[in-house]
């Protein structure tokens, strides 16, 4: 809502010294979001006067037609001689009154005017357009042509009210009444403690039976309909300057007198109005729901197919208006230059429609109008008659019309709304002792009637449909007493338990990976299903089953991720493209896996807690959303430097990153070779952990398939890991049992075992551990050797075994026996042969 300060002052006697900024501050404190204060005519300096065009000489030798004019500006130029002005506009004739800016003046935008040569003549000033004066669009597309009655030489700055301040207020959905001057004025009056001159307090004639006939078939959709008729309108009458200017400042375009008046009254009182050309209505006006599929053309020329829920205004032929949203082309007011002849008789509609119905219709037809915007947020039903009267008055005054005596009012009976509330309720909401007296006074200021002592019975004003519960009233009191005056106290929550295990693991995983050199890169979860082909997933891969969006940002990426890799690999590619080639990235986040059994949740009520079954049904509508962690690596894992050579990132770094995360949840991963897209079939590790007593696959790691790196435009040998963090959390062993530390000396034994190439080292180590028995303190693989010395298809694994007993110093014989037992078991299970044996 754009509120010109000069207009606002008509209803509230704001101190003359108050600037727009001052008023802004006050209104913000009262809860109106005044976004800007526009300074109209800032920097404007005269002389800017009314002139009369005396002569026009058409200059034709230029690319576009140019006019050399002489204009009578009276004594404004000091000489009284006609002013010679070159002008490019063509929408005026000899004898027209125009706005002339003279040399020495400054127009908005720091545009200084001086006599200057142009098109071979000297132009002593300019004939102005609305744009040049900062007036906004007047629809003329050229210079301003003033009404003939204005006098030559008149100061146009005053005449056109060019200097003003306009408050731009973003009205929240609960404050529909502030979509009017009346509503904003009420708030300003309360904020300043001044009286309000309520423009809706008008004498309105009582309804009678000889007004224009109206039949309301749906009193729920339309609980009030006022119709008034004005005849004998002067088709030549135009909107006076003041009216046009107020509309312009409020952001509306002047159109024609009758339309301008209805818009003006809507801005003033908040009541949307519609003027029908009476000669174009056939029979009584009706209000009903549309028939499904009924067709209708609105004022904007759009053909619309109506829904059975749409409320329509009709005459004998069918719909003539989409109620509360937009009128019909068939009964549109005709302009004075309309070929069919201008409108001279109008029926004014001031009605009240159901907010939800209007909201649905506006949304259904994607048609948000000034009227629908107001009806959706709630219009004061009691102001309808006054608004109709105000419209009639202006039509009589400005268009020379005559009001017919008939007054139609169809009103569905309704009682005023009351709210019961303990008098100290606002105090208890705020934590402040306002006291009953203050509470009552503040409620009265917003228009409530208040009765009662400890228990107040509050009748809310007709323009505040948002006031429906005690907390709504509390807010009125607290905001008017000033949010800025609320004290600052702290509640005392019960003692907390800190983060959950899941949350701690999430943090630890991130810290551990960052500590290992990985940089976190969270990505959008939107993916294209084409990425599954690039990743080389089988047709039946469960990761291809996605949750899809109805309205994705990009039609290319309509699905939600089922794996973190596409997003994270995208970040890797982006970094690589920007010149960072040695990369280790990680991400933790949810993936979205349809259960395949999602149900559509029924409409649950909100007037009670849903039952446990209903909550379960809500959750059953959702896909599975586990938290995962992923890493990707490319380029060098260790940089080359003065210390020696670097080392490229490889599959082992990816696997190790999984172990890094697993360690944080106290889980030892079991690693097995696997073939799983998008990984390299020979360099892919499946990762297992014991979850709820069962060995469970928790993720994969390794080097990506070369086809995948190619398809995704990734650096060669890019590696990746993805693990389900939620599974790791469940696999956690709980509280760690402290190890017993022996202080007896260690006995170290090294063994080198030759095994077939395809025996996994993890298996060899496992067997050695088992065979070595309890005396084994630790085992470490310190070398892997492949070469002709040990034979084709074989590899040599060198292990350091450390033995120690808790109660004695081991003898060499004991340690050797344990080692021999380990080797013997390895030989038996894996075919290992002691090297050199």
């Amino acid at each position, binding site marked *: 809502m754009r509120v010109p300060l000069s207009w606002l002052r008509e209803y509230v006697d704001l101190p003359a010294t108050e600037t727009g900024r001052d008023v802004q501050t006050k209104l913000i404190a*009262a*809860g109106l979001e005044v976004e800007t204060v526009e300074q109209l005519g800032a920097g404007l300096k005269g002389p800017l006067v009314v002139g009369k065009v005396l002569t026009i000489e058409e200059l034709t030798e230029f690319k576009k037609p140019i006019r050399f004019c002489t204009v009578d500006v009276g004594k404004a130029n000091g000489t009284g001689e006609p002013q010679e002005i070159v002008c490019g506009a063509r929408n005026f004739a000899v004898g027209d009154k125009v706005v002339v800016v003279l040399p020495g003046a400054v127009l908005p935008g720091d545009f200084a005017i001086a006599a200057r040569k142009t098109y071979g003549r000297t132009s002593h000033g300019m004939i102005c357009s609305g744009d040049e004066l900062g007036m906004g669009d007047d629809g003329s597309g050229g210079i301003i042509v003033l009404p003939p009655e204005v006098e030559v030489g008149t100061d146009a700055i005053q005449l056109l009210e060019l200097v003003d301040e306009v408050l731009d207020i973003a009205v*929240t959905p609960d404050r529909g009444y502030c979509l009017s001057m009346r509503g904003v004025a009420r708030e300003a009056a309360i904020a300043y403690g001044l009286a309000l001159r309520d423009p809706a307090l008008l004498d309105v004639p009582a309804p009678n039976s000889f007004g224009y006939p109206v039949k309301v078939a749906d009193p729920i959709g339309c609980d009030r309909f006022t119709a008034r008729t004005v005849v004998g309108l002067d088709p030549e009458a135009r909107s006076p300057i003041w009216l046009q200017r107020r509309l312009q400042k409020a952001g509306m375009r002047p159109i024609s007198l009758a339309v301008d008046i209805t818009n003006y009254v809507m801005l003033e009182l908040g009541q949307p109005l519609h003027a029908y050309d009476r000669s174009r209505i056939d029979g009584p006006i009706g209000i009903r729901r549309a028939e499904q599929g009924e067709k209708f053309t609105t004022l904007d020329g759009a053909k619309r197919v109506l829904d059975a829920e749409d409320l329509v205004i009709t005459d004998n032929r069918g719909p003539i208006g989409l109620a509360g949203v937009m009128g019909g082309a068939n009964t549109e007011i005709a302009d004075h230059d309309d070929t069919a002849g201008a409108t001279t008789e109008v029926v004014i509609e001031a009605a009240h429609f159901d907010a939800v119905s209007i909201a*649905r219709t506006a*949304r259904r037809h994607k048609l948000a109008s000034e009227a629908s915007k107001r009806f959706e947020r709630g219009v004061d039903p009691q102001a309808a008659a006054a608004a109709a009267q105000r419209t009639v008055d202006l039509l009589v005054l400005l268009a020379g019309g005559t009001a017919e005596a008939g007054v139609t009012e169809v009103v569905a009976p309704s009682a005023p709304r009351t709210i019961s509330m303990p008098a100290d309720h606002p105090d*208890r*909401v705020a*934590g402040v002792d306002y006291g009953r007296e203050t509470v009552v006074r503040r409620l009265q200021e917003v228009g409530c009637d208040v009765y009662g002592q400890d228990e107040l019975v509050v009748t809310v004003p007709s323009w505040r449909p948002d006031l429906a*519960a005690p*907390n*709504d009233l509390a*807010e009125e009191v*607290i905001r008017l007493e000033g*949010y*800025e005056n*609320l*004290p*600052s106290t*702290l*509640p005392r*929550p019960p*003692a*907390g*338990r800190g*983060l*959950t295990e899941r949350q701690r693991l999430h943090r630890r995983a*991130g810290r551990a990976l*960052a500590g290992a*050199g990985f*940089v*976190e*890169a969270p990505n*959008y*979860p939107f993916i294209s299903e084409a990425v599954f082909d690039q990743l080389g997933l089988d047709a039946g891969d469960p990761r291809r089953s996605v*949750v899809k969006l*109805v*309205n994705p940002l990009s039609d290319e990426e309509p699905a939600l991720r089922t794996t973190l890799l596409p997003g994270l690999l995208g970040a890797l590619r*982006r*970094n690589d493209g920007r010149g*960072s080639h040695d*990369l*280790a990235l*990680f991400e933790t986040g*949810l993936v*979205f896996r349809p259960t395949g059994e999602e149900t*559509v*949740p029924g*409409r649950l009520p*909100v*007037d*009670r*807690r849903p039952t446990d079954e209903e*909550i379960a049904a*809500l959750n059953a*509508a959702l896909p599975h*959303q586990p938290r995962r962690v992923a890493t990707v690596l490319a380029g060098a*894992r260790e*940089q080359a*430097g003065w*210390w020696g050579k670097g080392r490229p990132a490889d599959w082992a770094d990816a696997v190790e990153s999984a172990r890094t995360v697993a360690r944080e949840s106290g889980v030892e991963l079991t690693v097995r070779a696997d073939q799983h897209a998008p990984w390299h079939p020979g360099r892919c590790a499946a990762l297992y952990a014991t979850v709820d007593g069962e060995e469970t696959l928790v993720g994969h790691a390794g080097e990506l398939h070369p086809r995948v790196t190619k398809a995704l435009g990734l650096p060669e040998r890019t590696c990746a890991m993805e693990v389900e963090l939620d599974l790791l959390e469940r696999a956690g062993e709980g509280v760690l049992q402290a190890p017993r530390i022996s202080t007896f000396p260690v006995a170290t034994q090294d063994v080198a075992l030759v095994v077939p190439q395809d025996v996994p080292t993890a298996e060899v180590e496992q067997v050695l551990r088992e065979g070595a028995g309890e005396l084994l303190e630790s085992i470490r693989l310190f070398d892997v050797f492949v070469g002709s010395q040990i034979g084709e298809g074989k590899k040599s694994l060198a292990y350091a075994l450390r033995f120690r007993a808790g109660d004695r110093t081991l003898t060499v014989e004991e340690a050797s026996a344990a080692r021999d037992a380990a080797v013997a078991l390895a030989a038996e299970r894996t075919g290992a042969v002691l090297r050199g044996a």
Partner: protein
Amino acid sequence: MSAPNKSYDPVEVEALKPAEIERMRDEALAAFAAAGDLEALAHAKVAHTGGTSPLSLANREIGALPPQAKAEAGKRVGQARGVVSKALAARQAELEAERDARVLVEEAVDVTLPHDRVPAGARHPLTTLSERIEDVFTAMGYEVAEGPEVETEWLNFDALNIAADHPARGEHDTFFVAGTDGGGGTTQAEGSGGSSGVVLRTHTSPVQIRSMLDREPPVYVICPGRVYRTDDLDATHTPVFHQVELLAVDEGLTMADLKGTLDHMVQALFGEGMKTRLRPNFFPFTEPSAEMDMVCYVCRGESVGNPDRPCRTCSSEGWIELGGCGMVNPKVLVACGVDPEKYSGFAFGFGIERMLMFRHNVEDMRDMVEGDVRFTRPFGMEI
């Protein structure tokens, strides 16, 4: 070793003559002093203190002396050996110190060499800032609550007093999830919602609802997480962003408690003397509702009306907009089975991206979402 010989004349034993002992001692001292390095000293040591050195040999002769002569000779030789051994130790220490000094000089390195062998990793500042905020509240006794990002409309809207026809529902630019009928090709009219009744949550408020459904009051939770709105990515918008919301439901909670909690938070995050300001606003899920601002932590409001000291952080407004807050609308409590006659609550929420932008002077939202390591790395482990 010789047996005692009573007739033996000590004077006749040349090696035990006083002058001879002195000579042996002085020769040893001279040899030690002359030793220029530890190796030479080691040779001198063998020559003058070893088993075949003159003093050792002399010492050996003492046993052969008559008892009356033993004491005197023993004392003389012992003293000489004591002096020699002391001198040896002193020279040894001297030469070792010289050697050490030389070796340490030789071992000197250029300590200014870089060592970026494995460059440091980092956590994303959105993660760490969110955690920092969580920590402020867990320290006060709040729990951190989490919930699904794909959420039902009932939890995201209805339970929060945003009915299907509420104007506020249209203002949330919502991603709707298609039904599971395969294609999900039912392209709904804009804003009319998907038939699945499921959306990408537009705020973390459904987690507040879940918290109330999950437990009996009092409820004190903080709900961080990712949320979604259909904005295109540009310098100041992102369709996927992070929020932190707070919910407190207890007996007798007031708006003053809300204000105090906000004040505490900005002090914990931005330092002593920080405060917040509430401005009336409207949200369906709170009543009364407010917009919350915090005083600009850079200029502390001193840039207002002071063109000589403009403030970039708050555009010389003195205040920075944080987010929305208010007292939980009793209708929301009812929908969660909480008795509004007995309990009241307050809630607030704000965007982490915005706070990161003004707290760390980030100019472009895109830097936070593109995962460029050059942006993230400087933020390290904590924020």
